[in-house]
């Protein structure tokens, strides 16, 4: 009997429980969310179901309300049933997986598992999301069959966005249960799996919290300020912009203290146990309820000046007074900002001369040594530790990748000089001539395995088709600075963009044409996708605006028009090419990036998809075919036999999406907006996208792919312009939009509706493309458009003029 998760029970409706329930529901799994009956019910409430479910209801409501959204679509909540642990406990018997996310208290967890044991049906998975309590202690007293199905599944907050899922085998967990959960977690829930051992705080939190607390200690010793720490441990070290302390504010100082204290108590033998002791000032902050975001004040707080300007303040550890946070100035930071690659930036920081650099070096060296000493205690491989830090803490590089980046030999030499105790296994590794933790040979990545003292292949799921690996094997057919055509084998090719944010430019447009010509004779299908990193990352953030402005400023309008036409017809010719084209968007899929997808046969999208036509924000309209193809996408859901319908009902949402620059908050939301159609597919694991898109190409070819016929399109014509003029006039009179917004909106309506034709006229597709192009070029001549673009390029924010 195949194992399936048809329904799941999540016990505990706090922020983690709610997050797990939201994720499961988003993945299409019926979920039972349970929590306790409020302990202080009044006598008359004791039989009131609403009162008895008050806690779980509040938990679900909080999960629905929180921003950034935990739910990919609010409608996913329809798959969640709420209940309480007294009246509804028997329902867990119907679930294939029961995950407990209740309070971190051993006795309470033991009692819960004891209650679950007789009720769960045989073979049901039971897991704990504990972040610190040993599984062994928790499952004590349970029967063999229970323990064989019991494991740790440790998600990270916020569950939807954090990729890490630590799987912790219990003493007796069956191997097939572990394998199943790893596949389920990776494929269905889209997570990155890290194998952890049943040790205090497992992998991510053990290494991560050690690093954070140690930094706080060192900061005081070295006389560094909080903003300096955050700058040093920010993007220049491949870490999130929030650095250390802003991250701690988000996590909550009380939570951090709890994990640190819990670890300290459980790791008696740890050689660096003292690095889990928070500095006194942090404890004082917790006593004063300065807990971070949840109490509005933590290491940082935001005040308002009398004239409503926001002012960011930071705490002084010595006085606990807040003062204005000023951007730190350190020579090593300046050097790092100038450096091009991440390893160069990191080297500029840790090998710098100033006090900031010296502090950073100490902190980094300590954390690297701490990490290597945890093998094999918490994990068998450096890969799992690196992945845990990347996926659980949003670092670009884990400790061992960082170590390689700053140079293993050089850093070890410095460590020895500075009196750090370099672990024996690292010394031995170097002595045997192994000078890096990772190496790539012929596209295959190998990692250093301390146990066998040799390199082993870094294995990934067979569902993951790595473009980097394929490219390293020399499978690049064509390439330029901006794009490459890669042979994915079986006749399928991938067009990969690799510009900044994968924005479209002349070279990419040329590559689109070349790919079509090449595959027409040499291949059977095309995938358009890439695997650029980042959170949320960008399939393509649109056209390169700087190019446009530069051309406009020297009156190169003919050139611009030609380029736009090239893009339009590059995409339209792909649409009607003899082979299937599947796009694989994820993250930011905006403007031209969105248009590439709208023109394709099928979209295989990552669940985290921020898709939309946002051109109006920079005073432009979409001119890569979106005004045509979004409307076509909407209309394509109708069978031909439906001939008499109100076209306005289709026109309006298309118009609104473009005129309001609507961007989806997930792939599920993009489907609601109509950017994803019924044929398009959502994939939860981003690493799977290219492989899944290739599968779809092969399937379409196998099914006998024929390109769609090119037909005229029905448009709303002038009727649309009358409707829009009135609405726009109302919004303008209501001061909701500016005069220029109104002009742009009318232009969008004009183009989508096919221009000066009567309603329900059928026009050639080229009519809309021509109107798109004309409007685009005209707008580029407008001062207000150029001002909007300039503002976006310099501030990253839209200008409303």
């Amino acid at each position, binding site marked *: 009997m195949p194992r399936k998760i048809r329904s799941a029970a999540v016990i505990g409706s706090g922020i983690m429980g709610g997050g797990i329930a939201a994720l499961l529901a988003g993945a299409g799994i019926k979920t039972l969310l349970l929590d306790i009956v409020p302990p202080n019910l009044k006598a008359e409430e004791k039989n009131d179901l609403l009162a008895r479910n008050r806690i779980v209801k509040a938990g679900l409501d909080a999960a629905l309300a929180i921003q950034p959204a935990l739910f990919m679509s609010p409608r996913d909540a329809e798959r969640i049933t709420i209940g309480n642990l007294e009246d509804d406990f028997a329902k867990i018997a119907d679930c294939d997986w029961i995950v407990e996310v209740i309070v971190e208290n051993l006795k309470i967890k033991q009692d819960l598992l004891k209650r679950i044991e007789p009720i769960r049906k045989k073979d049901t998975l039971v897991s704990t999301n504990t972040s610190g309590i040993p599984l062994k202690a928790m499952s004590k007293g349970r029967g063999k069959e229970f323990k064989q199905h019991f494991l740790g599944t440790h998600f990270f907050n916020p569950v939807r966005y954090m990729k890490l899922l630590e799987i912790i085998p219990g003493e007796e967990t069956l191997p097939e249960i572990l394998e199943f959960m790893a596949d389920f977690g990776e494929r269905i829930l889209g997570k990155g799996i890290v194998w952890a051992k049943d040790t205090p705080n497992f992998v991510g939190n053990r290494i991560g919290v050690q690093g954070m607390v140690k930094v706080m200690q060192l900061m005081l010793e070295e006389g560094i300020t909080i903003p300096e720490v955050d700058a040093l441990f920010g993007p220049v070290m491949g870490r999130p912009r929030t650095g250390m302390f802003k991250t701690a504010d988000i996590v909550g100082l009380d939570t951090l203290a709890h994990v640190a204290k819990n670890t300290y108590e459980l790791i008696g033998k740890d050689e660096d146990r003292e690095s889990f002791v928070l500095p006194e000032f942090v404890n004082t902050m917790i006593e004063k309820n300065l807990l971070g975001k949840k109490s509005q004040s933590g290491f940082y707080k935001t005040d308002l000046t009398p004239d409503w300007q926001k002012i960011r303040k930071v705490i002084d550890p010595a006085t606990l007074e807040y003062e204005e946070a000023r951007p730190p100035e350190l020579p090593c930071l300046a050097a790092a900002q100038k450096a091009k690659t991440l390893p160069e930036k990191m080297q500029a920081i840790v090998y710098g001369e100033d006090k900031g650099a010296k502090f950073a070096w100490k902190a980094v060296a300590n954390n690297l040594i701490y990490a290597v000493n945890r093998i094999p205690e918490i994990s068998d491989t450096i890969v799992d530790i690196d992945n845990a830090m990347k996926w659980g803490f949003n670092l670009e590089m884990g400790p061992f990748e960082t170590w390689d980046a700053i140079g293993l030999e050089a850093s070890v030499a410095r460590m020895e000089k500075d009196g750090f105790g370099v672990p024996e296994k690292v010394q031995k590794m170097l002595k045997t001539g192994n000078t890096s933790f990772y190496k790539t040979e012929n596209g295959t990545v190998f990692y250093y395995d301390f146990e066998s003292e040799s390199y082993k292949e870094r294995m990934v799921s067979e569902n993951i088709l790595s473009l980097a690996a394929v490219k390293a094997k020399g499978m690049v057919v064509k390439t330029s600075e901006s794009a490459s055509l890669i042979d994915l084998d079986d006749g399928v090719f991938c067009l990969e963009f690799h510009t900044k944010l994968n924005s479209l430019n002349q070279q990419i447009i040329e590559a689109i044409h070349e790919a079509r010509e090449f595959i027409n004779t040499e291949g059977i299908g095309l995938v358009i996708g890439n695997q650029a990193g980042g959170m949320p990352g960008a399939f393509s953030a649109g056209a390169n605006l700087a190019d446009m402005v530069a051309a406009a400023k020297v009156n190169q309008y003919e050139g611009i028009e030609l380029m736009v036409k090239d893009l339009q017809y590059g995409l339209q010719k792909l649409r009607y090419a003899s082979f299937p084209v599947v796009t694989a968007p994820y993250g930011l899929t905006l403007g031209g990036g969105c248009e590439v997808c709208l023109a394709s046969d099928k979209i295989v999208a990552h669940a985290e998809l921020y898709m939309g036509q946002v051109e109006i924000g920079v005073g432009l309209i979409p001119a890569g075919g979106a005004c045509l193809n979004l409307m076509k996408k909407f209309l394509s859901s109708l069978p031909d036999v439906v001939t008499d319908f*109100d076209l*306005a009902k289709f026109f309006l949402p298309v118009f609104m999406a473009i005129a309001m620059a609507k961007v989806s908050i997930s792939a599920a939301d993009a489907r609601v907006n109509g950017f994803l159609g019924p044929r398009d597919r959502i994939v939860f694991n981003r690493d799977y996208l290219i492989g899944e898109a290739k599968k779809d190409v092969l399937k379409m070819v196998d099914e006998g792919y024929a390109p769609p016929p090119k037909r005229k399109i029905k448009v709303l014509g*002038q*009727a649309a*312009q*009358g*409707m829009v*003029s*009135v609405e*726009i*006039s*109302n919004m303008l*009179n*209501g*001061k*909701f939009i500016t005069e220029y917004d109104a002009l742009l909106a009318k232009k969008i309506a004009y183009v989508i509706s096919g221009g000066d034709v009567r*309603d329900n006229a059928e026009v050639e597709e080229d009519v809309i493309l021509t109107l798109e192009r004309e409007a685009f070029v005209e707008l580029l001549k407008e001062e207000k458009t150029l001002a909007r673009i300039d503002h976006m390029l310099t501030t990253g924010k839209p200008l409303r003029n």
Partner: protein
Amino acid sequence: MRDAYIVTSIRTPGCKRNKGAFKDTRPEDLLSFILTEGVEKTKNMEKKDVEDIMIGCSFPEAEQGLNIGRIASQIAGFPVDVTGATVNRFCASGLEAIAQAALRVMAGWSDIVIGGGLESMTYVPMGGNLPRPHPEYTQKLADLYASMGITAENVAHRYNVSRESQDEFAYQSQMKAAEAKSKNLYKEIVPTPAARYVEQEDGTYKKETFLQDFDDGIREGTTLEGLANLNPVFAAGGTVTAGNASQMTDGAAATVIMSEDEVKALGLKPIAKFKSYTTVGCKPDEMGIGPKLAIPKLMKLAAMDLKDVGLFEINEAFASQALYCINELGIDKQNVNIHGGAIALGHPLGCTGAKLCATLLNNMQERGVKYGVESMCIGGGMGAAALFELCE
């Protein structure tokens, strides 16, 4: 000219669009019911005695289409030789229908005519199902099609009607309505069958009917603080909110009008005479000032003074415009909309003119007032007003 006597004037309750009691009741059913009741409540008169039926409707399309005046009267069982028409003057359609019916009697062309009004804003939304403003004209000037809310904002802004005074006006409307409802003063309401689709035990649905006998938009619990907390809907930084604007409503109303000869022949006691009616135009983007222009014009036409008028029903499309008109005309607020107005009771567009007639005549009888005026503003930039004289 002969006199036109009103012998019966009744209405269905007004019920909230999409959420109210009539949300599942077809407009034809509302109208055919009130037409039948109009005949039933007129002693000694039968359906065959009626010559024509004029029905005001602002969006006469879809369920309200194909000449609802004829469709609904046939559904109601009037003989085939009784004719029917649909009349559209947007928000004054119902009053226009009554005026035309009265005029037929006054001219001697007809002896018994029913004038009425109907709008199910649930079934046919404001603006109709397929709004198609003229493309070239709207490019130049979209005012003619402007949202009513914007016109209300314009009135508030141009003539300095404050948010506070609008909210206070809205509050009073609700309180007056709440009191009238609790004291059962809406004698013009006829309990009306309403449909609903009820889920059966096996999961299928069945259409059922129930009687609705009150206006379901009245908010007894309205407070000034609550009103003050509402956000403006139509303009950033504006003053018009959902609380100080009229409600969108479903309803129907009918008024039976006949000549003096018929009144005598049937042995009836008439309620009032329909004396005079007028309309006037104004700028579309401030259509709300219509009553301010129409009422003086009516007074001049009737050679009367405002002082002689004891009661007014001035449609509360928006607090801003109603309040402005009342203040400008210098009318005593005690005599206006004494049982609340459209802010509490709803503004079922084409029905409103006919509905306010029934309400005004009821109130004139209640107070023993000789002259009453009904007036309203009209989308597109117009006002209408009519004069009624209570019969001794």
